[in-house]
């Protein structure tokens, strides 16, 4: 192999290694890109992670939407977790408050976090919460149980075809990983 080919090879290899490193970075860049894409397009039904300001809508008394509540725990979360009511009929534009009850079944302090999910995903942008225990981690003292409210409104602009919305929460035990 003569010198000029060697030089050409070395130059090409440098470029290709750069491409490889770039693609490794791109793999990680997909993480924020994915969230940005969901946010921009409203795809995926991600629930807003923080409270919205309470604004008043024109209440649509002619329309009723059923909102169902689901609570879940996995086997690694030693808690009691339930909603006070299983479902409620709501008028779009009107604010409602529903209470949830969670209890730490261990004798130690527990830090837990509730992850929300809305189904069908496409209604997530019309479902606004002004108050929710899911916006931050919750610390429970040993054996502590408490009632926590969720205040929400369904935006009256929600398309006509939606008659039922399911709001689901899963509590995860984050005691070990929590920075506190």
């Amino acid at each position, binding site marked *: *192999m003569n010198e000029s*080919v060697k030089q*050409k*090879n070395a130059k*090409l*290899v440098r470029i*290709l*290694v750069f*491409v*490889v*490193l770039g*693609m*490794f970075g*791109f*793999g*990680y860049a*997909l*993480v924020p890109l*994915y969230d940005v894409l969901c946010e921009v*397009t409203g*795809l*995926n*039904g991600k629930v807003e*992670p923080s409270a919205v300001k309470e604004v008043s809508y024109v209440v649509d008394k002619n329309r009723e939407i059923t909102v169902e509540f689901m609570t879940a725990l996995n086997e690694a979360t030693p808690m009691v977790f339930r909603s006070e009511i299983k479902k409620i009929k709501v008028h779009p534009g009107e604010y409602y408050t529903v209470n949830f009850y969670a209890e730490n079944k261990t004798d130690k302090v527990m830090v837990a*976090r509730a*992850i929300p999910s809305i*189904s069908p*995903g*496409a209604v997530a942008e019309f479902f606004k919460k002004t108050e929710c225990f899911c916006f931050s981690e919750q610390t429970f003292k040993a054996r502590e149980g408490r009632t926590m409210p969720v205040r929400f409104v369904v935006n009256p602009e929600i398309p006509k075809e939606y008659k039922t919305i399911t709001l689901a929460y*899963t509590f*995860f*035990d*984050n005691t070990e*990983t929590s920075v506190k």
Partner: protein
Amino acid sequence: MSAVVAEHDDHHDHGPAKGLLRWVITTNHKDIGTLYLLFALAMFFVGGSMAMVIRAELFEPGMQFVNPQFFNSMTTMHALVMVFGAVMPAFVGLANWMIPMMIGAPDMALPRMNNMSFWLLVAGVLLLASTLFMEGGAPASGWTLYPPLVLQTGKALPFAIFSVHLLGISSILSGINIIATIFNMRAPGMTLMKMPMFVWTWLITAFLLIAIMPVFAGAVTMLLTDKFFHTSFFDAAGGGDPVLYQHIFWFFGHPEVYVMILPTFGVASTIIPVFARKPLFGYSSMVYATAAIAFLSFIVWAHHMFTVGMPIAGELYFMYATMLIAIPTGVKVFNWTATMWKGSMTFETPMLFSIAFVVLFTMGGFTGLMMAVAPADFQYHDTYFIVAHFHYTLVPASVFILMAAGYFWLPKWTGHMYDERIGQLHFWLSVVSVNVLFFPQHFLGLAGMPRRIPDYAVQFADWNMISSIGGFVFGASQLLFLYIVIDTIKGGTGEKVTAEVWEDAAKHSLEWTLPSPPPYHTFTTPPTVIPTEHI
């Protein structure tokens, strides 16, 4: 093969090193090609044995031989071994052997890196195999390694992840080497649009490799940090999203399946014209179709995840984008058929395997189109229908073409002719049994049998038994191939093969202008005449 090459090269200045160490330190593209091919053949039987365990367990309903955890380890390891240990290394082996000889280069551009890619592959596969003996067993989450399931793997998880890293680095190094070889080492007059199709398809595949393997390495690294360092990329409790993993994985995963099929197309485009005794029909359209398929492979990934709850706009986009792939693929199938049209065809074993590839790959492609239809996919998703689909595009396609390549080039590599009668027997046993094995799985899938389960409802019993019988016959038939490879290396039929081996093959590609077997070093001075029959 080693003994043969050594004998014929004793007169040469730079013959291979003596003894077994030759194979460890070699930087010769032919030696490394041989290592890759033999390693891939060995892994084909290892992965095949795992498939036999799966088919034995599924022979009847109920639990027979293995526990469910081990069964799922088998489905996972079978896929990983076949993809990363057998099919990909086999094509890299072909690339090592053939690309320098096809473009008139003395060797690969980066011979030492070439050696390193091979031994990293061996290390990666051994590390993967070692997970079978660890506490908690080998990964059992399916080869896609979806969280949160994969995070429940026992002690094996970090080893499996590091093994993926090693295999990825090995593939990336091969990819860089192949690109550098094709760009910088071509003989004078070998313009890009005169290159044999096999070289073209590998050039495009190499670009896919360097683009996707780093993304996969990133995805599994995220799994690793989620499990051991409290990151929350995919952990809902920390604000992550398990579906994100699927997006990243399939951004790698879809081009990855084309890494296995594009070189297949290249070999088919090489073999069919030789036995049809005609130039390849539509050479430039083949090149553009390959590039188009490679491009499309990057923008269709979420068709693997139609059921995760994507909004309708996403489903529609991925559905139409996926259907687009049928166009360049259709161009290829049309061109192969048109190449055979009115050709003076003969049906030696490599041609038989290639024709079976065209027919059976097309069938696999059609079931792919069925699943591209998002609403229909809800029925097929995660059933035996998808298992039938991708096995049709891998076994009677990639694997058959690898067999065809073996029969086609073994006489060139060894200087001996294989036994045509056993080759034909191998073909007919394989082509019948592969259909008995996989065709019933379409029916099982449509009837609702889920994949990756060790037990099933009794209504699936009959087709599973037929499928298993096909599987055992197919598995046993491959021992014929092993016999032929060993027999041909040791002397084959004893018939002296010419440089050309196949009638007029030298008009198609440069390797047939070299003696059979080729000397240890070839094209140290570049060839002056470039064959153009294939264009």
